[in-house]
């Protein structure tokens, strides 16, 4: 890890005080995004991916959330900033694209009004109501901002931007809304773009085009991106480096290609083996069980109830972190204790064997 990381998160933990007791959701999260790097966090539903980014961007209400740890963005400690300073940062140096393109746009304002506001006021110091009103109604400044919005809409390949800018979100299709959101996030040329499953609520062909648009935009600007996805294929297409998250812990990280050729954590391996293949290669029968209850997480390694390699070591103590070279690490005891080393092929074999055993038990 270089000292130059744009985003450097260390020891981040998030918990929630709830009706069922304290939910210990995210813990020990260390991650960093270098300048010009595209990083994805991959995990299934309920693995704490979105909570992690919300903690980074300060969008969690405290309480009920308890956030601890350091979040350093370009040398600033984000956790120390006041609310006003945060607001200046969000939307200006930190861009965000959220998953649901409808609920992120205000239905009672036109797309143009919302985007022009971002272009005009995003990241500017809060100088009071009078100054706001003066600038809001200054014709020339408003027109210039609108021009910038139009330009950005063209850049995200929005069909017919002149008509779209005066439309309400409900008049646009899902793909167009998502494009509008991407345009909004890019308006102030953010240093870091945080994207939470962009386009995954849309149809496959549209999703694919949103992704290639993002890839182009990112490459063009040399932007740093922290993206969340549940789809390993998407991560492979877009990112330089991947973090795999399970049960609120980062269980593995590696450069993208390495994840697919030599994944080291059994969870990653199980995920890869469960993806349906176009080539018709048989897939493993999935991973048994489901993500843990955060109010009463499994002891030791949080993956052990579902892991085909689990033994007493896994149940008793939190697994150690093993580094593989500069950029890769896995958090699994199997890499330390000299037992069977998990490989993709072996995990697949075990998962399929599990399946057959379960079946024969049912037959009996």
């Amino acid at each position, binding site marked *: 890890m270089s000292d130059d990381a744009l985003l450097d998160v260390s020891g981040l933990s998030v918990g929630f005080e709830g009706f069922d007791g304290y939910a210990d959701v995210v813990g020990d999260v260390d991650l960093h995004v270098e300048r010009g790097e595209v990083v994805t966090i991959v995990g*299934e539903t309920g693995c704490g991916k979105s909570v992690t980014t919300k903690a980074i961007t300060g969008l969690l209400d405290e309480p009920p959330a308890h956030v601890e740890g350091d979040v350093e963005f370009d040398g600033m400690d984000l956790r120390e900033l006041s609310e006003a300073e945060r607001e200046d940062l969000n939307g200006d140096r930190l861009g965000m694209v959220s998953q649901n393109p409808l609920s992120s746009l205000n239905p009672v304002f036109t797309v143009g009004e919302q985007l022009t506001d971002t272009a005009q006021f995003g990241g500017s110091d809060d100088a009071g109501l009078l100054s706001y009103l003066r600038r809001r109604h200054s014709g020339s400044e408003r027109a210039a901002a609108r021009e910038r919005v139009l330009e950005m809409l063209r850049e995200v390949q929005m069909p017919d931007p002149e008509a779209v800018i005066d439309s309400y979100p409900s008049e646009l299709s899902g793909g167009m809304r998502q494009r509008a959101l991407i345009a909004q996030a890019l308006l102030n040329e953010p240093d870091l773009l945080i994207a939470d499953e962009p386009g995954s609520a849309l149809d496959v062909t549209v999703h694919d085009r949103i992704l290639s648009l993002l890839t182009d935009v990112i490459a063009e600007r040399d932007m740093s991106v922290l993206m969340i996805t549940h789809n390993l294929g998407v991560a*492979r297409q877009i990112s330089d480096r991947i973090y795999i998250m399970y049960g609120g812990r980062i269980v593995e990280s590696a450069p993208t290609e390495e994840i697919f050729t030599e994944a080291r954590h059994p969870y990653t391996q199980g995920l890869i083996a469960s993806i349906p293949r176009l080539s018709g290669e048989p897939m493993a029968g999935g991973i048994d069980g489901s993500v843990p209850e955060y109010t009463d997480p499994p002891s030791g390694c949080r993956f052990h109830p579902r892991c085909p390699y689990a033994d007493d070591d896994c149940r008793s103590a939190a697994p150690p972190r093993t580094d593989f070279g500069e950029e890769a690490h896995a958090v699994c005891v199997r890499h330390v204790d000299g037992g069977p080393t998990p490989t993709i092929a072996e995990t697949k074999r075990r998962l399929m064997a599990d399946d057959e055993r379960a079946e024969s038990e049912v037959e009996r």
Partner: protein
Amino acid sequence: MSAPVLEVKNLKKHFASDGWLTDEPPAKAVDGVSFSIDEGETLALIGESGSGKSTVAKTIIDIHETTDGLIRYQGEDITNPIRRQVETIRSEIQLVFQDPTSCLNPRRTIRKTLLVPLKATGVPREEREARVSEMLERVGLTDEYLRKYPHELSGGQKQRVNIARALAVEPQLLLLDEPTSALDVSVQAKIVDLLADLQEELGLTYLFITHDLSLVRNFADETAVMYLGEIQEQGPTEELFESPRHPYTRALLSSIPVTSAADEAYRPESEPLRGEVPSPRDVPSGCRLHPRCPHATEDCSMRQPDTRHVNDVAVNCIAYDDDTDGFDALLDAANTTPGDAS
């Protein structure tokens, strides 16, 4: 040769617009769909949202009234069925929905949920409890789930309960409407596995509806690709994956984010589709894909494409018709243009 389990001919379902003051044209959700499924086989129906694939399933089991066309089950005409037929249909054809949560009554325990179809089909009271346990076991759940409520179950377990409920009446034909798309991959693989085992064990026939082509690669015997209420390409799954011919099939295949180089070979080099699915109220003239198709010619907007049969695969495409080498030749030509070479 015995009759196919399900035969659908030129099925149409048009939804008239609400209200008597509007003069909106009807939404042609399904517009002339034909297919048949033999016993013990699986037909996959693929398409994006709005392609009418779910409407096909709902029309088959008479949730929607058929506008036109013919539906035959075991050789018997069940289009807009009469009362006696409805009973047969409901006990022999079952539908499993996409969202496992909204299909389960949150105030009923799993046991009660599973008892309902048994009561409805007149299973004697004393046999019911045993049948419920047997059903649960079949989908890989234990008796301890009997007293649980849906909120205590994970998504995959709920979908198992839904499948168990569908199997309770011992159906012949299962219509699976995106049964795994609300689930994570590790769970999805489990459910697909379960469905394959059940098919083998009980000799079930499946109509498997999904938007994910990669999922049906190993699962379906035949695959039909739907777009805007029409089947565009239909044939044996193997053949369809080896050489996809219709531009829409190619676009669908090429938009799947894959995870290995071996898979990448199956993604056809294809120009992406433009824009989004148009409204079924205002269907484009000629070939329905032409406003979005990268290979569209003027001819495509003028006339309906004829169905061509190539190696057991039926393709509805004019552009393909014009060039027997398919699109590879077209694409090669496009790729070697000076603009791309730089």
